[in-house]
């Protein structure tokens, strides 16, 4: 950290830490958390959009500080629904459903939530520190990430989807294929042609994420559980407070996942078009590959929660870099922030730090402050959130279903989306009865269109030659890392299978 940026940051902290601004950060964090927990309404960009009219009533510095609080709060809260209810509120929370919800089933919802809060706090802090120190360097790296690099990164993410397919690889591939197919619906950006829209305006922009995720997770979950008795409690809930929070051993065992997730999330977050979705998927795979117990992933591994949640939160600092340094909004959330900046009359970009340091540095400082607010707010509330699991099914599931309907409708004010959600829910119910995993389907649905677009953009650049993926150094590097990781995972699995065979008791003579 240079002396100048340290001094600027301290000035920024003093400007952000006024009673008024502290109040608005706290309000932003509270509201962001409250909205972020709602299935269907919980994405940070939705929370920011909903509160944009209120934000614009404030002065620019306070308004942006308020937005930073909302962004943080919504990010943190997204994990709660995923872990407790198996309902992700945004794409980046999908990964948490895999191990987080398994932990909840095992009576460890509290430690899972606690770890997501703590790993998020650590990662956010590291992300904001990196933003303060390395913004110009990282900004230029972000520019160098083009279609071939994105293709390689997303391909890495999709390969990881296959490793998450559970016991049956074939069923995982079926799920992935369905997800890829669903992702093709809509008007193609490059050719303008309509694909599987059946000439319906409702499908012009493709199948939306919210109806898909709410259908696959919320509706199918309700349908699956309607078959079972409603008298039982949802999951076992420990009574002692210390069992509702992670232990020191849990924190020790997950520190590698937290650090790797922080790094992955920050770098991917700063890529225009990157975003927390890819960051969380990739960090899950990285955490699994470097873990001492990769066999636990998918069956309730705390590292499977800590890694993606760290990536999800350090992405906050990363996403600010293209926004503040280049005036480029890299995600839907920063697009809303950019809109606020423009309406406030502040032009983000390379000149922002010179022309408006009184806005840039307090916003960065507010991210630090927001972090502490989140820790203070969310950690003590965990025992309360876990009590949700004691609510009987016959109360909980109509509530979930209601929120799902509201969420599906709210994005585009469209009843079609509600209908789509119900249809997808029925399909999801069928898939779950056939034991076909739905997480790979959703991940392929999210990543597939991005992969296809990156592939076609790359082939435009190379006039059809696939060698472009090997000729661009960053793309080649990512492919090599992916290949090494896949090979390492294969060798480790083979080694473990070999040890299992040796350990099996020999039949007596």
């Amino acid at each position, binding site marked *: 950290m240079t002396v100048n940026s340290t001094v600027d940051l301290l000035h920024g902290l003093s400007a952000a830490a006024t009673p008024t601004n502290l109040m608005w950060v706290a309000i932003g964090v509270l509201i962001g958390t409250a909205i972020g927990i709602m299935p269907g309404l919980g994405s940070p960009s939705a929370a920011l959009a909903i509160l944009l009219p209120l934000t614009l009533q404030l002065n620019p510095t306070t308004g942006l500080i308020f937005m930073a609080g909302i962004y943080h709060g919504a990010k943190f809260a997204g994990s709660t629904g995923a872990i407790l209810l198996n309902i992700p509120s945004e794409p980046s929370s999908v990964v948490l459903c895999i191990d987080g919800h398994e932990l909840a089933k095992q009576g460890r919802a509290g430690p899972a939530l606690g770890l997501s809060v703590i790993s998020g706090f650590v990662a956010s802090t590291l992300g904001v520190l990196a933003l303060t120190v390395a913004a110009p360097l990282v900004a230029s790296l972000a*520019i160098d990430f*083009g279609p071939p690099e994105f293709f390689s990164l997303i391909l890495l993410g999709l390969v990881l989807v296959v490793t998450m397919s559970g016991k049956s690889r074939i069923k995982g591939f079926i799920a992935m294929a369905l997800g890829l197919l669903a992702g093709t619906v809509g008007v193609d950006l490059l050719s*303008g*042609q309509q694909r599987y829209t059946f000439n319906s305006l409702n499908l012009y922009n493709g199948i939306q994420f919210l109806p898909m995720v709410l259908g696959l997770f919320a509706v199918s979950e309700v349908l699956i559980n309607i078959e079972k008795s409603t008298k039982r409690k949802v999951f076992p809930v420990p009574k002692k407070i210390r069992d509702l929070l992670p232990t020191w051993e849990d924190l020790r065992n997950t520190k590698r996942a937290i650090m790797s997730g922080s790094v992955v999330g920050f770098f991917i977050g700063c890529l225009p078009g990157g975003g927390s979705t890819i960051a969380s998927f990739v960090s899950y795979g990285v955490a699994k590959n470097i873990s001492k117990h990769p066999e636990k992933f998918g069956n309730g591994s705390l590292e499977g929660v800590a890694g993606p949640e760290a990536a999800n939160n350090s992405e906050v600092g990363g996403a600010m870099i293209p926004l503040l340094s*280049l005036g480029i909004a890299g995600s839907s959330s920063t697009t809303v922030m950019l809109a606020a900046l423009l*309406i406030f009359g502040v032009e983000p*970009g390379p000149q922002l730090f010179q022309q408006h340091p009184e806005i840039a540095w307090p916003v960065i400082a507010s991210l630090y402050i927001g972090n502490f607010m989140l820790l203070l707010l969310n950690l003590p509330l965990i025992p309360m959130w876990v009590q949700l699991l004691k609510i009987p099914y016959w109360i909980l599931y109509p509530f979930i279903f209601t929120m799902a309907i509201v969420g599906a*409708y709210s994005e585009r004010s*469209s009843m079609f989306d509600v209908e789509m959600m119900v249809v997808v829910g029925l399909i999801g119910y069928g898939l779950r009865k056939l034991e076909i995993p739905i997480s790979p389907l959703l991940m392929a649905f999210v990543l597939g269109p991005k992969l296809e677009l990156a592939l076609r*953009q790359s082939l435009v650049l190379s006039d059809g030659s696939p060698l472009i993926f090997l000729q661009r150094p960053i793309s080649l590097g990512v492919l090599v890392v992916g290949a090494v990781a896949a090979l390492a995972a294969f060798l480790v699995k083979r080694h473990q299978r070999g040890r299992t065979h040796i350990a099996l008791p020999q039949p007596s003579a």
Partner: protein
Amino acid sequence: MYARGKHVLAGATALLVATLASGCGNSGSGSDASPTPKEFLVDTGAGGGSDIFAREIEKILGDNHITSAHWPVRAITEGDGLGLMAYLRSHSGKNDEIAAFTSKWMVEADAMKNAPASIEDTTPIAELADETQLVAVPTSLGYTTLKQLLDAGRTKQITLVGGSAESVSTLAAVALQQYSHTSWKYLFFHDNGSRISALLRGDAQVMVDSAATFAPEVKAGKLRILAALGAKRVSQFPDAPTLHELGIVIPGLPDQLQFRGIAGPPNMPPKAVKYYQGLLAKMVKTDDWKKYMESQGDTTDFITGDKLTTLLKNFDTSMAPLIAALPEGQ
């Protein structure tokens, strides 16, 4: 029996809520009297071009006490501009809903076979702003005039980066290629950030868009504006000449490529149209509006009535041959 009762309760609750939710979005009825807009509709999500435009209008009207009514902005993003036009058509005769339209709506409708809606399914109330399109290149390429860029296209491959096949900026680029007898490659991204990154990275050599898109990078010296595709120079970039000043005449290419205005549902009562026009006429005279236009590099162009109808018709006619020449048609 108790368990079954709970199932019934749960199912009934869900059904009730679903029924209530299906009532969401139903608009109320309006009257011929001075209306209070229930919603200010836009076809982009929060932070999109039309969203910002609508919020600025609402803010300026309020700050300048032109109206005390609050115009809440609501996004109807399903189907983009086509979807919003279809929505307006379904609310024929109402006076309490208005929408921020752009010229892109007409291009979308013309580019699609059997488009479900068109601008004729709305009541255009007023055009407000001309968002002059600019041709930008990275400064690292060394081009200082549009002619250099067009000449370079004859000897090497130029790649244009843009938003979609039928965007106004792509059509303008088609016109430039036809004029210079060259053929460019097209690289499309969903968002402006990725497009600017592609330009800075060197994956593309040219981009056509508005002043607000390029301003940060031009001020940082990374991009240069070669030309303004309109009748007048843009205030933010006064050194960028127009096509007319460069002696480049492209028959049929309208001076206004990207413009913004306000429209209502079809068969909107004339009194309501006059009412909104009155408010907007006051708005465009305020200092806040002029400041907003200047910050965006746009020009105020307040056009209503028959003149507006003629403008829209001429735009449609001009764009037709360019749409037909798109790289891969629909």
